[in-house]
């Protein structure tokens, strides 16, 4: 295992110390492992709390700041944080207008956030939760754990954050967040496996000339393992299931997001974006906004994902609104 770390057991602690040192505009509670906006709680504003396993940086800690999250809870690597952390964060960011929990749809995350919400309600904080489940690689069903939360989480945190910053009510912010989840779809792929520090070896084995299509952000196996192919074909393999699953034609087009999995150079992501933009154009789908970079990662996995979100006037207004976080910053 080749990683720039100390003891694998200390990865989360050490990285949080680094985030704290690098970002004076954030406040880090190292005991609870929560990253806060320095000015939280913002009085009268709906608080946004997210969190999840570590290993997806900049998500979530890197999205704390004006116009996005108020707090992010960091779990162990690829392991949901615990209710204590979420409760501490929820109580701390409540500015009187209630708190929205943004939860990626994994059994552990959902249950831990549920317990935290129950505890927060007990202590008088109004809490709503939105569960993000945008990964079309997973067959959806009422009788299963459902789809995983992946790329749409980034877009949702930005857009819900802008709505909260604009003073919308908890119900409205939650509604907007759910609308984002309803109208966003993602699909990912891996060229290489990630390696969990504590495990010390790759999560899955992939041959020198194979790639995994439909992979999850924890190295969960995907839909199929196929031979390496040119970027143009990879883009098609990612977009086909997305476009089959949801109708993105018409209206104001989409916000198109090409995301790197952690070890993929920006050069390749731009190249992939070119292929994605070409396919969308040929499909008659306009791109209203785009985002290209590594924003929701899977440790040192090489690969990428594509997320599309239906754009409309309100979505674009919220997308364009000022944001100032380590990971996303504009308009300020």
């Amino acid at each position, binding site marked *: 295992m080749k990683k720039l770390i100390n003891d694998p057991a200390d990865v989360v602690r050490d990285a949080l110390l680094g985030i704290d040192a690098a970002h004076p505009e954030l406040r880090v509670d190292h005991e609870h492992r929560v990253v806060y906006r320095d000015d939280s709680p913002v009085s009268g504003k709906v608080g946004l709390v997210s969190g999840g396993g570590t290993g997806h940086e900049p998500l979530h800690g890197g999205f704390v700041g004006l116009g996005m999250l108020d707090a992010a809870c960091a779990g162990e690597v690829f392991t949901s944080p615990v209710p204590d952390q979420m409760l501490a964060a929820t109580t701390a960011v409540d500015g009187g207008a209630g708190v929205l929990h943004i939860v990626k749809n994994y*059994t552990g995350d959902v249950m831990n956030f549920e*317990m935290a919400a129950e505890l927060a309600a007990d202590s008088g904080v109004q809490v709503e939760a939105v569960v993000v489940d945008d990964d079309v690689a997973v*067959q959806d069903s009422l009788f299963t*754990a459902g789809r995983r939360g992946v790329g749409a989480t980034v877009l949702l945190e930005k857009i819900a954050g802008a709505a909260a910053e604009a003073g919308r009510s908890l119900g409205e912010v939650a509604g907007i967040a759910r609308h984002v989840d309803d109208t966003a779809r993602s699909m990912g792929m891996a060229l290489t496996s990630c390696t969990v520090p504590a495990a010390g070896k790759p999560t899955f084995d992939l041959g020198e000339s194979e790639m995994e299509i439909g992979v999850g952000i924890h190295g969960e196996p995907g839909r199929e393992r196929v031979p390496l192919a040119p970027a143009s074909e990879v883009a098609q393999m990612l977009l086909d299931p997305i476009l089959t699953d949801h109708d993105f034609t018409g209206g104001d087009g989409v916000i198109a997001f090409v995301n790197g999995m952690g070890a993929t150079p920006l050069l390749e992501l731009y190249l992939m974006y070119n292929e994605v933009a070409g396919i969308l154009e040929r499909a008659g789908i306009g791109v209203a906004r785009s985002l290209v970079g590594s924003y929701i990662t899977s440790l040192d996995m090489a690969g990428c994902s594509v997320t599309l979100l239906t754009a409309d006037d309100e979505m674009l207004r919220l997308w364009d609104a000022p944001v100032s976080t380590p990971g996303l910053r504009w308009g300020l």
Partner: protein
Amino acid sequence: MADGSTVTVEHLAAWLRDFATRVSENRTRLTDLDSAIGDADHGANMDRGMSAVVAGLDGTAAAAGPLLKGAGMALVSKVGGASGPLYGTFFLRMATAAGDAESLDPVAFAAAFRAGLDGVVSRGKAGPGDKTMVDALTPAADALDAALADGGDLAAGLRSAAQAAEAGRDATTPMQARKGRASYLGERSVGHQDPGATSAALLVTAASDTLAGSPA
């Protein structure tokens, strides 16, 4: 309890300690099972959680409820993932059912165990056949109830429960997962034993070894 008649606070503490030991001994095996159909952390998760539970057994709990609540809280606070809230809820609901009693008779213990199971089901929404810990815990609760209803003592009931849990665990292998991470695999989850059902079987075996063999 030679007479199989009561489960004291000390018995419960011994149960938790024994479960912790078994988890620690099976840490690698649990993680390996989780590698195949999950994310390779079930052994580490449970070991971290049960170590915290044992560290919290400071002998101050005077009643079954507080002792079990402490265990549940420790699991909820330390584990994360799916198994933290599930095992945590299991012990928290047992605690509520056990209440302030200094000891539990076999029927009260069985009722508390079932309350724990119900908690797992209401938290995780898994039913039998979904390839989860519920597939080990449900037959165990059923076997315990049945044995006691048949007039068996706690020792006999827990022996039967442990056998049922292990059979339930083994039965997860051919199942297709419908809950938890393994569900993402769809048909490819078939042929692998569920890690949570495996740790749950350890829990019931530990109960059989600690709650029904020692003097009251």
